[in-house]
């Protein structure tokens, strides 16, 4: 169940990008996300489980593509600030 578990590669990328970043990571174990959102996460190199959920869908964190992009931007900004 790829979308609901952490994507290893994405996590690896994210640690690289996000090392020293201050953006808060949601750090869930499981995240619901639509196919396009999963692709966006790969594109941005972020771990879906780290993206703050914009919605709860009957209790389950649901992440949108927009949230993924915002999170990626924030991560990038934090990293740029660090540099």
């Amino acid at each position: 169940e790829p979308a609901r578990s952490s994507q290893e590669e994405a996590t690896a990328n994210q640690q690289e990008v996000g090392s020293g970043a201050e953006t808060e990571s949601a750090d869930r174990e499981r995240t619901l996300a639509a196919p396009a959102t999963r692709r966006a996460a790969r594109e941005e190199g972020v771990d879906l489980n780290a993206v703050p959920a914009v919605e709860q869908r009957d209790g389950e964190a649901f992440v949108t593509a927009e949230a993924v992009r915002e999170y990626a931007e924030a991560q990038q900004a934090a990293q740029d600030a660090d540099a």
Partner: protein
Amino acid sequence: MVVGDVATGTDVLVIGAGPGGYVAAIRAGQLDLDVTLVEKDAYGGVCLNHGCIPSKALITATGIAHDAGTAEEMGIHADPEIDVGQMQEWKGGVVDQLTGGVEKLCKANQVNLVEGRAEFVDENEARVVHGGEGQGAETIEFEHAIVATGSQPIQIPGFSYGDEPVLDSRQALAMDDAPESLVIVGAGYIGMELAGVFAKLGTDVTVVEMLDSVLPGYESDLARPVKKHAESLGVEFHFGQSAAGWEETDDGIVVHTDAAGEDDEGLSIDAENVLVAVGRQPVTDTVELTAAGVETDDRGFIPTDDKARSNQEHIFAVGDVAGEPMLAHKGSKEGQVAAEVIAGEPAALDYQAIPAAVFTEPEIGTVGMTEAEAEDAGFEPMVGEFPFRASGRALTTGESDGFVRLVADAEEEFVLGGQVVGPEASELIAEIGLAVEMGATVEDVASTIHTHPTLSESVMEAAENALGHAIHTLNR
């Protein structure tokens, strides 16, 4: 005289033009990669030429005749005659239209088409061997390769496809005359689909299955209506029997079986032909994988990662040769992903579910997890069902056997999977598949207005049933 070898280069070499390979090639072309597709037999592979398409064409056509011939209750009196040769011609036309389409689409997407058999020479070079004598070979240097060589029917001891009375599914689908009688070895989906076709063509069909039910691998309440319907068509079943061999008789053949149970006895079944449909195995012997350093597993499949990569970083494998489930749409998805990965896109095989359909009567469609699978995966499943006999649309079509089942996570209520047996089951799972991929909850499905009167209302009602408030069935 051997014509000298010609050498060309390509970004992406795709070997095999089935639904795995041709889709990979088209997508690669769309992504502006320089792509070469090599096919030794026919564009479209097994699926278009000898599998999905021919079988569905014959299933539909024999179904049209059969439905009209058995609709007296509806006031329809007909006694359809089927000209099998003519039916084959029509089927051939459908296949030609589709395979011609594949060729056109490849060209329109700038795919270089090469006819011949490709085999690896080393990690970055393949040779294309053309049929016929003295045709020489072409050498292709590649940056990336996608192996899409497909699968072939398993042959069992005692039954050689070279012998005339013994048929594989491809031969059975091409018969210009229906045999008087047919033994089908194997009650998997191919065997059961063809059992229906031949029964409707008037053939006496006997199915021999080693295990104890039809469609092993599917839940028993999905398989049961299929068996029942086949029996109503006159199909005879023998379970716990494995085919051992056959002999010629005065007026046909006799098929011998061995009983699985100690106390049971083997059978001898007279027939005109025997169709062996016991499964399929990957095709790797055409392509010299070892020359390229590509490994296979103990069943002969090429293991791949979530980017469809083999153990060799730049060589991908897609479709049947890359493993189960051996389904056309799985191969096409893998083909797309392989092409996108090569083009540097952030693609991966991260789908939640691969749907599957069995085109028997009634049809079966499944996607995602069964209740048992959900439990095994650590979910506490909630289940909703809706029987087609309570569906207005099903009743108006005269086909109301079966049901829709949805499996969801009891706590969060998102849909984990669905199983359908009944009319248009193959189509109904599309919506359930989208629900699974979207992380939709049963409430999302239940709240979506569905057109009346349709079969898809049953998906909504199954969702409502999971929530305890279906309208058209009791909520127990």
